């Protein structure tokens, strides 16, 4: 059944996107405001399942790329999505049937919805990550062998660049350089695919999951418990942040956070390692959860996600972990986003086996 992304759904979605960001992806606040304004002016965008669309129709994965500092100043015009679509249709000779968020975690979970509302197009209930990751090729479409080309990038002025790169890695390099020329931020589409391809190459139902997450928090007597039950998540620890070590190198935020258990968890000490997102949770050298599974730091009272840049000593937090989409657990998925892809010298084990055994 077709569902409309109305104001209440968008607000719930924003809270869900923050939690699925696993510490990264940026604050969804500006994305939410854009979606709300577009919805007010053009009506709500429909959310559709892939099975509701014809097999050969085209899906445009899209979002913003660039520096967070620039995104909070140079807010989008609003027409970027329409320009990307127009040019993609011109290049492929096919109509775009629906938009898709390349990354549900953080601000990019909402930006495509504002564009879809303005164009009267649906948004598919899927995305390319099921979470947030820092680089363009860290998407499920890459794992499925779909080409990132042609990628299109545009800015608020109407400048537009088409990229044909030999690999996802080259696409990342070229787009990052162009984004700087555009003023530090731009909007883009990569990995265009058909509905038939998308069935096996995306994380399905992630938009409705994010909305359910947000709704489970609204009005709950115990938001953290409500969220854990909604996600089937593992509660790694409830306590306070007792140390934060963070540095910015080559555009990435790296560091670690210590969480000291309180109450039932008194005496426990959990260490989180992060690089934009939360990568690994450790207790006395033992891994409790790791990428590509999701590790989120929540405010213990409200269950709102705390992004890595905002974690501070003394905050009362609950750390949860939950399973990623199975597509990331394949050999190809772990090669792109498993612990070894981030420089760790251990093999991935699913959170169910790690935290599940500890519980």
């Amino acid at each position, binding site marked *: 059944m077709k569902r409309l992304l109305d104001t209440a759904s968008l607000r719930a979605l924003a809270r869900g996107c923050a939690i699925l960001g696993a510490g990264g992806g940026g604050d969804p606040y*500006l994305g939410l*405001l*854009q979606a*709300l*304004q*577009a919805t007010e002016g053009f009506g709500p965008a429909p959310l559709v399942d892939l099975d509701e669309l014809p097999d050969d129709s085209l899906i445009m994965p899209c979002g913003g790329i*660039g*520096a*967070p*500092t*620039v995104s*909070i*100043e*140079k*807010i*989008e*015009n*609003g027409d970027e999505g329409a320009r990307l679509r127009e040019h993609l249709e011109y290049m492929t000779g096919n109509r775009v049937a629906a938009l898709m968020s390349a990354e549900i975690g953080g601000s990019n979970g909402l930006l495509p919805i*504002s564009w879809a509302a303005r164009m009267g197009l649906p948004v598919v209930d899927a995305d390319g990550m099921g979470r947030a990751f820092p680089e363009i090729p860290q998407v499920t479409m890459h794992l499925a062998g779909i080409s990132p080309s042609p990628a299109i990038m545009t800015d*608020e*002025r*109407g400048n537009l660049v088409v990229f044909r790169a030999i690999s996802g890695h080259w696409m990342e390099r070229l787009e*990052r*350089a162009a984004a*700087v020329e555009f*003023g*530090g931020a731009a909007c883009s589409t990569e990995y265009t695919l058909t509905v038939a391809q998308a069935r096996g190459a995306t994380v399905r139902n992630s938009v409705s999951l994010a909305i359910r997450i947000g709704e489970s928090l609204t009005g709950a007597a115990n938001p953290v418990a409500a969220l854990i039950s909604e996600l089937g998540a593992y509660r790694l620890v409830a306590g*306070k942040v*007792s*140390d934060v070590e963070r540095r*910015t190198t080559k*555009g*990435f*935020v790296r560091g670690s956070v210590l969480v000291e258990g309180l109450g039932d968890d008194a005496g426990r000490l959990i260490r989180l390692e992060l690089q934009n997102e939360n990568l690994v949770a450790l207790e006395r050298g033992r891994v409790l959860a790791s990428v590509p599974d999701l590790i989120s730091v929540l405010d213990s009272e409200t269950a709102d996600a705390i992004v890595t840049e*905002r974690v*501070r*000593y*003394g*905050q*009362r937090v609950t750390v949860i972990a939950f399973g990623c989409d199975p597509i990331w657990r394949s050999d190809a998925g772990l090669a792109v986003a498993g612990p070894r892809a981030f420089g760790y010298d251990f093999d991935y084990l699913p959170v169910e086996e790690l935290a599940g055994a500890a519980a």
Partner: protein
Amino acid sequence: MQQLDCRLGIDVGGTNTDAVIMDPADRVLAKAKVACTPDITGGITAAIDAVLRTPGIDPGQITHVMLGTTHATNAVLERRRLRRVAVIRIGGPATYSIRPMFEWPRDLANVVSAGETIVDGGIEFDGRDLSPFDGDAVARFLAEVGGTAEAVAIASVFAPVSPRHELLAAEVVKRELGEIPVSLSHEIGSVGLLERENATILNAALIDVARDVASAMQAALAAHGLQPATFFAQNDGTLMALDHALRYPVLTIGSGPANSIRGAAFLTDTTDSLVVDVGGTSTDVGVLINGFPRESSHGVEIGGIRTNFRMPDLVTIALGGGSVISLETGRIGPQSVGYRLQTEALVFGGAVATLTDSAVATGRAELGDPGLIRDHQELLADAARRADARLADAIDRVKTAKGDRSLIAVGGGSILVPDEIPGVSEVIRPEHFDAANAIGAAIASVSGNVDRIFHIGAGGRQAVLDEARDEAREHAVAAGADPGTVQTVEIEEIPLAYLTSPAIRIRVKAAGALGGLQEQHLQARLARQSRVARQSLSSASP
């Protein structure tokens, strides 16, 4: 400038208005505490009258007055005395996807807005034009709204990198509308367009509120034959001269907590400590670093509007001397008897159990008639234990690192604070603790701030750091600081992620003594300041 003799410090809080008179050697000569009145000016007048009538005080000695107040926040919350503002955003073709004031509460936007527009222009992070500035579009907009607008707010994309398009727009406003108050975002906020724009609109709307309180205060002083130099306390605990405060009222919107923290620093001659300020209804816990309050890392909300100006980083809990304890359930607050404590608390013969009664029950204070609480001894002692646990929790939350720290307890309700608190090495209770806020206003220095993005050019990093320091210093002098005393008290560099061009955001605070201080006094201040500056510079992050 007038030679400084005695200063009158005033702080308008939620429950009481405090006033102190201090001599040139920073000794407290007199203090007064009166209940606030609904229109706040009544409380200010009463506090001025009370403190000036203290025996032995010669009102003629008052040469300077410093006022800290939260009245601007209340004006926003109550939608009272707000000007209608024409809002000009410079950033087209970017930024149309979120229009100005989009997320404001509707009723407040209706009261404040005389119309909003987005015109072409704005700056890129690296200093280039986002697009050419469209002055004609500004003129057309002004022709439409000029009849109703009582003030103008102008915000350009990346004004913290360069204010040039805001300045061009201000010229157009002057040409089209003549003398109308104009607020420019680069003078008010930092990076973050919507938050800076919001703060700029609020600033424009609050012009009359600032004028009202200034003229009420001057009338009260004139009634005693006084015409002292007048300053307002800012959110960061420093002062601005009256003419500055009338132009930037939003920068004075939350000066109360900063005044208390600065007052606590002064009264204990400490530059680094935790500070707890217990009032009648609530308790603020903050951190004193290098003689100034630690500021929050992200912006504050005022009346449901996100802003990005900095305020002291506080943990506030609903516990105060007047907090009501239920005799049935033992539940504490959040209701408070407020300024009626002296008549309603049990120890004063009233019928309401309060945390002040708990303080008497646990022997922390000797007030009223302890016989009146004998029946409730156990319940009151239990409430004190629970209040202590909440205070300890708040103190722990405000810390940034492990380890015990000293705690300065100030405010009329600070008798509630126990001597032993987990994580606290010692509780310091200075003399005049109950007037720390007004004292903080009276002893405040004058500051200038810079917070913007600099591009590292041929001169390297050092050249832009020097440029930022000089700019902060100029701002301090413009705000009324004595040029000979201005020093950098805080400097912070924030590298920008995901950018290849070498750019850094630099925040600098420079502060100096009030212009017109006497020589001897100046030397004492200088000595204290240079100590603070040295500590600050050695701890500034690389």
